[in-house]
């Protein structure tokens, strides 16, 4: 019984294949170029040594696998085209070849060699990146992952903030890298800023380490990369790299205790009397809760809710009123304040620059 008699025209098939591949490559490269914005956290636009090293390694790996792909795919295409059953075939079975020890040995040994080389290269990069010792002038930052926000502490500077990591630029001549200590307050999260380093999980009851040395001032984005519950998608990260001077200024501003403006006294007292202080810290006031983000310099941050929304008086007001309306599942309860109280508290928090 004969089946599957359709044959593709040989010449046309070759041309079509070639054209398709070319078109595909052109479209792909144009689109990649067009779609990346300055905010795109591409692993191929590194800004710090670990990310540079990984990109270097990636290109080596692409080279090796690319060659393997071309050879094997090429052989497959060749076999499929050359050994198709032709029209008018006599129906006899071709010569049967059961195996060949030499060929099979060769195509086992060569991959083993490739694997050995690839492993040696890989091991070198593993130890180089993970084994970098911490120099004395490094900035130390502790990151604590929470559901669903990032606590950021600078133990030696006495600064506690949230969701936005500020670091000084690191000059390759006089490096001032930032060494991160990563911990979790609840479940497993993962700290990932693709342009600065590979990711590292933050795991309860375990302390992990990661280092970055951004070479240029600027902004970089990332987010949590380990599923951690309802708002895993809403745990964004911003890294701001400052020049040495700007970083010093930022640090000094953050070290100052909370502002005490006269005009918002009513809101300040109201805040101190509500359950807000059970979860939040505002340095210099009775509020010293640790369950939620430190609010001492809340208005120095661009976003609230770990990047979910811009930080403006209007959005802040909406957040305080009902966080779940802004970020469904947020663990901060709706405060259910009266309009008047809400205005007062908002005005107070807006003053915390």
């Amino acid at each position, binding site marked *: 019984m004969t089946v599957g008699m359709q044959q593709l025209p040989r010449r046309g098939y070759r041309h079509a294949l070639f054209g398709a591949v070319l078109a595909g490559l052109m479209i792909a490269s144009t689109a990649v170029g067009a779609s990346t914005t300055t905010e795109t956290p591409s692993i191929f636009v590194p800004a710090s040594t670990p990310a540079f090293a990984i990109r270097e390694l990636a290109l080596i790996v692409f080279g090796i696998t690319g060659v393997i792909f071309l050879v094997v795919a090429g052989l497959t295409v060749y076999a499929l085209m050359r050994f198709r059953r032709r029209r008018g075939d006599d129906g006899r079975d071709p010569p049967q070849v059961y195996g060949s020890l030499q060929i099979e040995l060769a195509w086992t040994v060569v991959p083993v060699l490739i694997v050995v080389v*690839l492993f040696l290269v890989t091991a070198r990069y593993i130890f180089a990146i993970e084994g970098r010792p911490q120099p004395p002038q490094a900035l130390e930052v502790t990151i604590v992952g929470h559901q669903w926000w990032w606590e950021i502490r600078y133990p030696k500077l006495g600064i506690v903030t949230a969701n936005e990591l500020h670091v000084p630029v690191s000059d390759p001549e006089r490096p001032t890298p930032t060494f991160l200590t990563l911990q979790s307050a609840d479940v497993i999260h993962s700290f990932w800023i693709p342009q600065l380093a590979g990711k590292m999980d933050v795991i309860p009851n375990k302390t992990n380490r990661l280092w970055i040395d951004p070479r240029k001032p600027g902004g970089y984005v990332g987010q949590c990369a380990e599923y951690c519950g309802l708002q895993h998608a809403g745990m964004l990260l911003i890294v701001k790299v400052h020049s040495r001077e700007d970083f010093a200024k930022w640090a000094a501003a953050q070290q100052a205790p909370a502002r005490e403006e006269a005009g918002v006294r009513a809101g300040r007292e109201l805040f101190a009397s509500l359950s807000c202080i059970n979860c939040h810290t505002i340095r210099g006031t009775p509020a010293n809760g640790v369950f939620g983000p430190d609010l001492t310099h809340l208005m120095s941050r661009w976003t609230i809710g770990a990047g979910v929304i811009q930080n403006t008086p209007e959005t802040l007001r909406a957040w305080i009123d009902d966080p779940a309306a802004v970020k469904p599942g947020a663990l901060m309860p709706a405060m259910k304040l009266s309009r008047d109280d809400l205005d007062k508290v908002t005005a107070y928090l807006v003053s915390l620059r």
Partner: protein
Amino acid sequence: MSVLSETASIRDARPPLLVSLNDWVVTVDHKRLGIMYVVSGLVFLVIAGLEASAMRLQLAWSGLHVVPPGTFNQLFTMHGTTMVFLVGIPIVFGFGNYLVPLMIGARDLAFPRLNAFGFWVFLFGGLLLHFSFLGGEGLYGGGSAPAIGWFAYAPLTERAFTPGNATDYWNLALLVVGVGTIATAVNMITTILTMRGPGMTLGRMPVFVWEIVTISWLTVLILPPLTAAQIMLLLDRFVGAHFFDTQAGASALMWQHFFWFFGHPEVYILMLPGFGFASEIIPVFSRKVLFGYPTLVAASAGIGLVGMTTWAHHMFVVGMGSTLNAAFAASTMLVAVPTGVKIFNWLGTMYGGKIRFATPMLFCCAFLFQFLCAGLTGIMLAVAPFNWQLSDSYFVVAHFHFVLIGALLFTIFAAIYYWFPKVTGRMLSERLGRWHFWLFVAGFNLTFLVMHIPGMLGMPRRIYTYPADRGWEIWNLVVSVGVPLQIAGILIFVVNIVRSLRQGPPAGDNPWDAWTLEWATTSPPPPYNFEVVPVVSSRRPLWDLKHPDDPDGLHE
């Protein structure tokens, strides 16, 4: 009297529907159980496919509100869990069930009642898992369907962080499915080792049978660790144990080690039978004997063994330390060797052949390219520092869908088109088969080839939406556009099956002119498989019959 007219007269005297149904429910016949396994698996494939389609709709652009966050998290959990445990496993063991006795010249499996037990327990587990959609608040809002990810990392799964019953549905349903799978694996090992027909030495078994015995050994070794971890989770959640309770000093990573010790060999359990399908189909449609049978079999054993040492390549980013990172990178790269060797064996088979592009062969051809891609992205992921960027991103999602769809599902499709005539006695439509193939190839590659890109642009997985300013939108849109093409392919596939069951042309015993024992009996085979079990003296008994002047035995 010919067999066809025999079965025709039987069909005229068809028993009433209830009797037929009862026959299926109480059956211990490996062929019927095999069919039930595969059909159930395909039904779950459709369900999980719909879950994926909903997710791709939600992610087609940033900030969409197609489904709420909680529902999205349930969707990816149920999608992954269903596909691995309720689609992949039953389909490969279902084919094993149907084909192994026929291929080795036996009349059934070693323990037919245990076989039936295995199937019904799997079906119960699958229904229990899906019942979770109805629990809690009922269907709207997804009820108590689990939202913990298919690998359910602790401590997220502890009661403190996931109250309610959703996690328990996941845990108990899979515990039950696991027991059934172990039972089936024991059955397969026993059958293959002790019930081969006359002349059927281990070295003459079809490659597919070798793959089944390999995955059965793997199952026996690595599924109990998952069961153990699930018992531990059960104890944590119900009687206050502290296996994964970090507040009591426990290790959050312990779950990961136990799970992935199961989880990585599990994907070889899924994939090896796919290799078995390719190893049966490619030779027949190239009209050439499989090139290098002994090395291919050794490669399978090698994959099974080495595959058990690679598990922590899923944990490169947990901070295991450089030595462990390097060790697991090494073992992962090592397992690529026997895997790659198989591709060369298939190429060597096609080389010098006369290739017929019937539908089974079309799917195998696409499999070759797609599996090559999957293997190469796997090598990339084995390079631990590169993994530190790619892990938990859409690059990984693209990689494993290339393995599970591009390689496994494509070989499953090939297997269905190839053995449907044997199982039903009718041919599937080649025309519809081609439509299915081309639509699915186009849709699959559009979705999953492109999906590597957002991963490399920093997009993590398991997020229900993403910011608008990260350059991910256009890629997600293209990825989502591939979905309707795949759906269309599946629809045509279903139509093909339904139509051919009724009006497909009769197949005869051996429509493909194949060479292994299952083609030596009628289509469909009688309940006792063979009237007289043939005596074999080589790997291709039917080739020997057709070529008495040049039997295989001289060359093996």
